[in-house]
């Protein structure tokens, strides 16, 4: 937030010595916050799972034993885990571990971008609806209701079938369907926060509506918002998996966890590992984000 940085620049111009002290104090506060997060086992476990997957995604090109789409015809006959293929291969002889790592890379790029886009749109709409109320609220809330009343999967299928399933389209379609949920949350928080006395004080000194929404109200809504975004990340991972499973996900042949399940679920009775391993990957990342969200909420409540 650009407007929020005014205090820092003011401080910087005022006195350099003080600024240094201020930086040290802020750093101290950040560290204390990190320390407090460490107090909650839930947060630590959730964060570890998420960090694990992020590390895997970042390091995939380095640590993946094979290229994601390389087929090992010899292994295809015996796809179960072996010394050459730790997690086995799929029916085409592609290394599951490598595909899992490369798949993490895709999921962890698309999901955050989609959630952040949804949050950006939802936050702006929610702030406007909650702050201005009246007609603006009515229009925004009804549009949100309409979007939320749609069966999302059918919506996804229609849109992606019409416009093709590229990463960009998936981000857009997720942003459009998740934004109303976030807008509702932000609207509720804003309806409460707009009546705080510091908002009245801001009006008394003639601040603009934009300033009040983004500088006075939004920072106080960020706690619940961050928690919700964590949850939303988990759900979005599932959504991307479902889209992949339905064959309208990220385009093949590059690996995508949902797609991996789709390709192999027919072999479930013979070689269950081909489907179960990507399923477990999806579950673990969802659990990770959920635990993180719960932990953050607990920490926020305790304060």
């Amino acid at each position, binding site marked *: 937030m650009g407007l929020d940085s005014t205090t820092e620049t003011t401080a910087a111009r005022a006195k350099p010595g003080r600024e240094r002290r201020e930086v040290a104090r802020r750093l101290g506060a950040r560290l204390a916050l990190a320390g407090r997060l460490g107090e909650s086992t839930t947060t630590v476990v959730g964060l570890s799972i998420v960090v694990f997957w992020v590390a895997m995604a970042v390091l995939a090109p380095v640590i993946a034993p094979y290229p994601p789409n390389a087929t090992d015809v010899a292994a295809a006959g015996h796809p179960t885990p072996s010394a050459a293929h730790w997690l086995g291969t799929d029916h085409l002889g592609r290394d599951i571990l490598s595909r899992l790592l490369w798949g993490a890379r895709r999921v962890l790029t698309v999901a955050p971008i989609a959630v952040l886009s949804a949050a950006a749109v939802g936050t702006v709409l929610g702030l406007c609806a909650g702050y201005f109320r009246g007609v603006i609220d009515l229009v925004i809330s009804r549009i949100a209701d309409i979007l939320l009343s749609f069966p999302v999967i059918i919506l996804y299928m229609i849109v992606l079938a019409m416009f093709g399933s590229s990463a960009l389209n998936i981000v857009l379609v997720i942003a459009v369907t998740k934004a109303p949920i976030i807008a509702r949350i932000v609207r509720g928080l804003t309806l409460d926060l707009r009546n705080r006395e510091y908002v009245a004080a801001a009006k008394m000194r003639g*601040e603009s509506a934009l300033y009040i929404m983004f500088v006075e109200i939004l920072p106080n809504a960020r706690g619940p918002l961050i928690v919700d975004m964590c949850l939303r990340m988990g759900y979005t991972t599932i959504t991307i998996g479902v889209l992949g499973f339905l064959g309208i996900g990220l385009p093949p042949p590059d690996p995508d966890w949902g797609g991996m399940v789709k390709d192999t679920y027919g072999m479930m009775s013979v070689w269950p590992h081909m489907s179960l391993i990507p399923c477990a990957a999806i579950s673990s990342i969802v659990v990770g984000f959920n635990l993180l969200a719960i932990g953050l909420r607990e920490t926020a409540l305790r304060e």
Partner: protein
Amino acid sequence: MSEETPVLGLERVRLSYKLRAGEIVVAPDLSFRIARGEALGLVGESGSGKSTVAFAIMRYLGPLGRIAGGRILFEGKDIAAMGEAELRSIRGRRIAMVYQDPMSSLNPVMTIGRQLMEVPMLHEGVGAEEARRRALAMLVEVNFADPPAIMARYPHQLSGGQQQRIVIAMALIGKPALLIMDEPTTGLDVTVEAAVLALVQELRRKYDTALLFISHNLGTVAQVCDRLVVIYGGEIVEEGRIGDVFRSPSHPYTRGLLDCLPRLGRSKHEMPLRPIPGRPASPLARPSGCGFAPRCAHSEPGRCTVSAISSVELPGGGGHFVRCVKAAELGPWRQERGAAAIHAEGKAAAVLVHTEDLAKRYGQSGGVFGRKGAPVRALNGIDLELERGETLAIVGESGCGKSTFARVLSGLEVASEGRAALDGEEIGARPVEARPAALKRKLQMVFQNPESTLNPSHAAGYSVARASRRLRGLAAAEAWQEAERLLSVVGLSPELARRKPSQLSGGQKQRVAIARALAGEPEAVIADEPVSSLDASVQAAIVNLLSEIQSARGLSLVFISHDLAVVRYLADHVAVMYLGKVVEFGTVDAVFAPPFHPYTEALLSAVPEPDPERHGARIILEGSLPSAIDVPQGCPFASRCHRKIGAICETMPPPTQRLAEGHRIVCHIPAAELRSAEAGEAQAMRP
């Protein structure tokens, strides 16, 4: 005191909380006793450990708190050694507790009747018939006119005062030996408070119940209790019969508490309030020796700060104990009378704010079908003037429209009718967004709630600096320096500008809010109950600050309050509001002396004064404020008035009687008649 077993006896009790940082001792060594039927007041600032003591007696300290030593004897049995089953048989039945917020003690989904009946059914195993009979009888005891109707209601259908009476009924229905009341009247209006206190007084006599009455308000304690314990930092600093303690308070802390209390007979020109310097002791850093020494004007390094001070009985007997090594040297206590300060007589009275027939209705635009309900009439024609450099106080019970008036003047709401002018410019119909910057600058506001007045996400100095930038066009760096300067004006260290509000105390936050209001160099400041949620000593400091700033800057102040003692102290003019109307207006001396409007009279008589000798002839208002949806045709106060003269009060709007010096009373009774009737009663009230 008799030699029989006291109802409650604390013997060298040590209370502590176990935190990650280690053990925090809330009360190191606490001993007191309450005899059968006796009322003991427990007084101290917030954080002094009062509530912890109450919870310890109920053994409700939570997973972290514990009774680390000593014995808490209830009717001779140690509560700390009891098993869960035994505790359950005592809690609620033999010891009952009434908390500050009645709504949190009542179950919102159960009718009042069921909640009341549950107590004897659960504790004594009586049948539903018997329980119902008792509940009805109890409701009569707590002054409900129609018990069967009340039994069928849900808690949210009752007013705050009624809820608290229900909670008292629930506490007393089991005929407990000990009743603990923790700030039972803090959230209530003074008229309601007076009624609740009178009820407590009457019932505890009738049921012979011992009472532990916890309060930060010496006034309410003086009304209810027989004996008083003053607690500071978890230590009893003074103990004695209520008359003895109030007549000759002997610990510097007790004296400090009395000195910082505004009283009805006290104005800023005669007796300035003297706040206790410093902040309450933190249980984390206990000084050796006297806990109060760091804030005490009499403390002597060698004597007060070395070893623990023991409590000594004062000569004259009567069980008056003081924990102060210098108690004998302090000399007799006299309420300080300051030099008659700056009393600007005969100043040029130029009107700054002027309202005429100002009204505010909130339309109840209901439903999809455009059906409009009756509007809520929050303001019903207000005519007031605020002169330059003076303080206009607006008093009244909650719901009388005083906050709405403040919001209309400040432009946060727009008037529905009538006019309001600031320095000749119309402001009533202009929301703050539509006011030009020069006009915004002239009028600023200090809000009620210190917890929400500052944005928790920004540093404390941020909004002060921002106000200087917006209202005076200062550059960012200048504005920040100005903010630090303003913080020192309101008595804060400029360093605090960079702290987050969560690191400040309530009083400090309210000071920052005052600095913010001053940032635009306004001509008038509206303060909406700025001190009502603060401790007495902090309140005194803030009230003094407002008064100093006002005289130093020639500021006009609109001070909204329900606390008549503070108003008496601070105001030049007073407007008494009832149901959206001003029923009396005049100089502070005129309003606080007969002739009164009957409502003013009732308000004044309800104020709990810290004077145990003042008893009797209180006017208890019946019923509650009529709804602002259907405002009575005649006098708004007619439904509760103790001086109603007949049908005329209900059918005809009362005339405005103009008396000397702009004193106005809106009442059917001629002022001369009011004067003679009220003067007689005021005599009776103060023998």
